[in-house]
């Protein structure tokens, strides 16, 4: 990003914060959290702490950074180096990212550039550059309405598991659009605040449907067929047994008359244990939520602060009061429609506030502020001289 563009963005962010500083949310136990931010010169400042939300807001307004973060954990001394902080516990957090889902739209809007030979192409980043076989490939991905909807679906699945299986009240699950590619779910003051990494990691496997065994459905390698049907779950059963049953039922909706116990029995008798196991594993993965395991297990993470701007998109990390009706590319827009001239290097088509933009290629063009900042932040454009 050139100097002029970064100065421009910083100015716009400052104007925004000046008018909306109150909308920045302060996390609970603020004194015990670590804060950090990244400047528009890409310098990361960490290990900051604040006494109260006023101090926090003043600092954000003053610096108007590219990105602001807070620790999901609380510490004895949040401003000391990591191993001296004294971990006390942490929120129970989950991260869902559109770029980890295989939405079909990604091949249309993702782009990659080989850092070695410079080759670039639209589509999902390959493991090796087809031209020079290099592996230093930079990817540029934006999220469109379709993959963001997919991400939202994962978030809804996750909420469902947390509510029904973990007994967490819906009102206690703070759900946010991340400001760019997905959603953050965070639960403060849960039973799990002090859970160690092993516990968190087992919970990750639970919510994402990993390592589910056919034995949990009541069959094993040596199972006799006798009474098998009674061991299989019905759709109304609790927990993963019911979830698997409902998934299989959905898959077979043509034969509505068959109940899930019958479907499972037939499947087992037809394909045998090994293939049954594969089918069940698949069903579990599909019914679970695809999350980034590291965010949940790593107790020293920092996450974007709710109510702040995402430096790459100019969108807000925004609380979703009602996830089902939330529409990130409308509801998380921070900037208005004042026209501004920018020089776009290369951009795929994208839409904000129901309006479509692009694709653009090496052109100077006037765009509404929100669209201009969306491109400037991602280094797809620069401000006109």
């Amino acid at each position, binding site marked *: 990003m050139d100097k002029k563009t970064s100065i421009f963005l910083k100015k716009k962010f400052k104007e925004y914060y000046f008018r909306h500083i109150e909308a920045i949310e302060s996390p609970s136990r603020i004194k015990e959290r670590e804060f950090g931010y990244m400047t528009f010169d890409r310098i990361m400042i960490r290990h900051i702490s604040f006494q109260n939300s006023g101090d926090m807001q003043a600092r954000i307004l003053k610096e108007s950074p590219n990105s602001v973060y807070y620790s999901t954990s609380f510490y004895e001394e949040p401003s000391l180096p990591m*191993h001296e902080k004294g971990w006390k516990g942490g929120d129970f957090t989950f991260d869902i990212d559109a770029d980890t889902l295989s939405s079909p739209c990604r091949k249309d809007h993702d782009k990659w550039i080989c850092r070695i030979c410079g080759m670039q192409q639209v589509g999902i980043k390959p493991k090796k550059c087809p031209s020079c076989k290099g592996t230093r490939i930079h990817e540029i991905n934006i999220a469109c309405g379709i993959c963001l909807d997919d991400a939202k679906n994962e978030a809804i699945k996750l909420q469902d598991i947390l509510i*029904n*299986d*973990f*007994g*967490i009240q819906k009102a206690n699950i703070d759900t946010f659009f991340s400001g760019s590619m997905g959603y953050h779910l965070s639960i403060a003051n849960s*039973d*799990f605040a002090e*859970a*160690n*990494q*092993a*516990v968190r*990691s*087992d*919970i*990750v*496997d*639970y919510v994402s*449907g*990993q*390592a*589910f*065994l056919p*034995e*949990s459905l*009541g069959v094993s390698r040596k199972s006799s067929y006798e009474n098998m049907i*009674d*061991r*299989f*779950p019905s759709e109304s*059963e*609790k*927990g*993963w*047994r019911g979830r698997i049953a409902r998934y299989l039922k959905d898959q077979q909706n043509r034969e509505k008359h068959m109940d899930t116990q019958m479907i499972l029995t037939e499947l087992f008798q037809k394909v045998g244990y090994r293939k049954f196991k594969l089918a069940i594993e698949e069903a*579990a993965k599909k019914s679970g939520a695809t999350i980034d*395991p*590291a965010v949940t*297990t*790593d107790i020293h993470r920092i996450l974007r602060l709710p109510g702040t701007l995402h430096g790459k998109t100019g969108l807000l990390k925004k609380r979703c009061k009602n996830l089902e009706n939330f529409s990130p590319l409308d509801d998380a827009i921070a900037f208005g429609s004042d026209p501004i001239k920018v020089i776009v290097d290369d951009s795929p088509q994208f839409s904000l506030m129901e309006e479509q933009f692009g694709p653009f290629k090496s052109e100077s063009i006037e765009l509404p502020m929100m669209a201009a900042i969306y491109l400037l932040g991602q280094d797809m454009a620069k401000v006109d001289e």
Partner: protein
Amino acid sequence: MISIDLGQEDLAKYPFLDEAGDYIKARDLSLVDISQPDFNRVIRRARQRVLQAIRSREVSGEMDTPEIEILSFPIALILVKAANLDHLISRYSHAEAIRVEKFLEDEREDLIVEIFRNILKINVILVTSKISFSKHNYKISIIDYLRRATRFHELQWKLINRTVDDGNVYLKSNELIRLIRQEIESKIQDKLKEMVVPQLPQSFIKTIQELSILSPPPPKLTGKVNISPDKYPPCVKAALDLLKKGENLPHYGRFLLTTYLVNIGESVDEIMSLYSRSPDFNERITKYQVEHIAGLKGGRVKYTCPSCRTLITHGFCFKTKECNKIRNPLQFGVKTNLKSNKKRK
């Protein structure tokens, strides 16, 4: 305190309960009293408890005369403590824990609930209705479950393979009891550690000497594989590097390094010498941790090395080509060799 009435038999089964201690106090017996011929059977049973731990790693339950069973427990503790052998303490605690586990398996539900609430601070709730295909008698909160179950590596203990609803995990009695074996063991171990050996009558000393002689030597770490450090997997090398540079090794790196070295047969002393360079080296704590991982402390669980997947999750994988498709750092070099052998044939 336990809120249901406990009979002498209950105390005999669970002599670590405070109530058993009260029972003994009420009898107002001194060690000198106990060493009188009248209490011969108590001493004999105490000696037998320890011998059983040494010989078969399991103390039997002798319920013919509950009083002897109750009184012999603290005496056995004194014998073990006075022998002053670390591994005898672990061995004995484990053997007593197995004894307790056997009794708990046939225990009445209300007493199980009480023991869990009072001794282990786990809120166990009796389940009356059936919520899955198999019958569960108890439920506990997910966090109480996971804190313990993550010690086990079999997939059936993973939360996803349990019956879970509304914040609770449903368990059968044998599962509930298996979950807390280690805690009963630690309870007994703690009792032993805190204990101060009183002035002992002469007759005790002989028994203690006898038990010390019979007590097996501390277990040896098994089968050294002899892998030279340049053949270690990248993640283990990285961990070693950090230590050598005197930098702080994150918890996960420590766990990886120790489990890896233990599993390829390095001795506790060799591993300790590596950590001695670490800036926050604390000999006592490190020794305990290493021995614990090696399975010399706190029961017989010898930890295996974390999987590559887990290491990736914790950001401690430094994969190179040579890692190929292995799933665990312990397979590094082993699997790749196997493959190249096959090719040659």
